[in-house]
């Protein structure tokens, strides 16, 4: 759908989807999702603010797809369709959100790389863009460990050595590692799709067109 639109419309549509994700994240007090949405939003509007240009539809499609997938996962989780279903003590609804978050983060990584190619002396091939996008998504999941740890501590989970070693079923480890494991699972297939998308595409063309197109 985004491919068939004008760049301006596609940018505004993507931005709206990202803002809705931000609202949901704030509503649910999900700091990392809110942070990812803010990074994506800033990266999305930066070229327009700087010189009136916007990303190519191929880049926008990633951010839009990521935002829509997260919204679908949030709707499923909030509707209670997966309520009470746990996998190894971890909520499946939350796992679904974690699986979709890296797609949005990859979109943000893709936009950051594209903007750096456009506005700095940086010259990189498509492979570097893919590596950066994938690494960015996993790095975001790795940073997620910090707020998650604080949240687990406040909720009374066994988080310290002396408490954790008394447990037979170490559910706190599973909860803590869920974002990184989910990111790895999502980034691998997404990386292959991105590689297919980037094939024969020049990195200089990732920001193309203006709001007047």
């Amino acid at each position: 759908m985004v491919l068939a639109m004008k760049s301006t419309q596609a940018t505004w549509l993507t931005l709206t989807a990202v803002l809705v994700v931000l609202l949901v994240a704030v509503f649910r007090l999900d700091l990392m999702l809110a942070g990812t949405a803010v990074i994506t939003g800033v990266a999305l509007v930066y070229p327009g603010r700087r010189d009136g240009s916007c990303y190519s539809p191929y880049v926008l499609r990633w951010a839009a797809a990521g935002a829509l997938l997260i919204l679908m996962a949030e709707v499923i989780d909030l509707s209670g369709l997966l309520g009470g279903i746990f996998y190894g003590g971890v909520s499946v609804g939350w796992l679904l959100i974690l699986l979709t978050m890296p797609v949005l983060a990859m979109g943000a990584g893709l936009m950051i790389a594209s903007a750096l190619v456009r506005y700095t002396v940086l010259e990189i091939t498509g492979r570097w863009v893919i590596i950066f996008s994938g690494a960015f998504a996993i790095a975001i999941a790795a940073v997620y460990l910090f707020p998650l740890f604080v949240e687990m501590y406040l909720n009374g989970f066994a988080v310290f050595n002396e408490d954790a070693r008394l447990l037979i079923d170490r559910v706190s480890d599973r909860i803590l590692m869920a974002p990184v494991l989910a990111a790895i699972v999502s980034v691998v297939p997404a990386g292959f799709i991105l590689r297919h998308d980037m094939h024969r595409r020049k990195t200089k063309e990732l920001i193309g067109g203006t709001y007047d197109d």
Partner: protein
Amino acid sequence: MIDRAMWIADLLCGTACAILMIMISLAIPEGGRHMYEINTGLFCALFCLLPALFYHLHIMRLPLWVVALIEFAIFMHAYGVLLLQYDLLIYYDTVTHTLSSMVITVCIYLTLMCVHHYCADTRFSMTWTLLLVFVIMMTFGGIWEAFEYVVDNLSGTMMQYSPFDTVRDMLANAMGSVLGSTIAYIFQRHHDFDDTVESFQLHPRLIRVLKGRQ
């Protein structure tokens, strides 16, 4: 003919390997040592020889300060494992994690310098390089913790003690990455970029790999 810096590097590698071998021989007769400790010590001792081997096999010539950093990081880890410093000293784990991350950051940075120098369609900027190095380090840290978690679940080992231990490791990774990036930034300000990469004397095959498909 061997140059003075490489002679010192050889001496460092050989000494680190020899000391670790002595520590392994001391650790074997002691009770309570698992094969994990002995194997780790042996692997680290052999790993200490890599920079010297790389030079003598004409694969690459690492700068003396990089060799010293690598040897120190490996030695500290092996010493901790073999003589149980990880269990005895509270912050030993954090120190070794920070040190290892710093060394890996420097190595990634030098690799990116080589790509920048040899790959015709790639030109890295300083901002990009530092950002990429930090992102890659956090990614490696995350993947490593996931690996530890999976291994613990499959084999029953205790590589991850608790969520606190995992988060502390990740924090050490981030600190090491920032320290390594700072060292790399200072290094680049005081050294000519092309001269540095040329001084690595990379093997022609490695150069071909770095050049990629033209």
